[in-house]
């Protein structure tokens, strides 16, 4: 069975400081990894994904994430946080050996709060 852990319910950071939102995963094969963001009263929006290749992937709004196979992690990062980045962030994983697109497993989410 595949799973995702987001160990922090909330991350607080001052505007202009770097931010990291943590994610670890468990799959039996190779992982496909994703980050989605959810703003208040809005649906989830795709941020970025790792399928294969370069371990550092860049996504929307200046976010990036680093795939670390040995640590089974896929932490979301941004060099300089903005107040507008405040939202709920979800990490998700799919086993590449799983033939069905539907087995996308989400974490419980991490609320990012960026303050002035």
């Amino acid at each position, binding site marked *: 069975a595949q799973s995702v852990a987001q160990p922090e319910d909330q991350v607080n950071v001052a505007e202009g400081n770097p931010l990291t939102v943590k994610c670890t995963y468990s799959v039996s094969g190779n992982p*496909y990894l994703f980050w989605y963001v959810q703003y208040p009263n809005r649906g989830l929006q795709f941020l970025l994904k790792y399928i294969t290749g370069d371990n550092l992937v860049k996504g929307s709004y200046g976010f990036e994430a680093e795939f670390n196979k040995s640590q089974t992690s896929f932490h979301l990062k941004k060099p300089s946080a903005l107040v507008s980045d405040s939202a709920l962030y979800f990490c998700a994983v799919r086993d590449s050996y799983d033939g069905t*697109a*539907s*087995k996308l497993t989400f974490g419980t989410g991490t609320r990012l709060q960026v303050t002035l």
Partner: protein
Amino acid sequence: EAGVVQSPRYKIIEKKQPVAFWCNPISGHNTLYWYRQNLGQGPELLIRYENEEAVDDSQLPKDRFSAERLKGVDSTLKIQPAELGDSAVYLCASSFKGTGVRGELFFGEGSRLTVL
């Protein structure tokens, strides 16, 4: 380009009453998903359609939940009768089959159900 459209945005009903949610996916997306998001949790897949065929409904509580996508476009998710534990946000998502396999889904804003 219009996104995934869901209605109603909010619904409050008494337990044992029926409720239905409607979803119109992005034009051309042949894959449609219904997810349920409980408070403080990540989305969990209920059912996935490829065109009009339900290809994964293993997580759908079939005693009270039903879904249809008659013409391979719009979809309806029904609960009858609703229970207190059904209170959640019901998210619809769509994708092209290719991006769906890679996990990039486009979500609607969700339908928040409160069962009293």
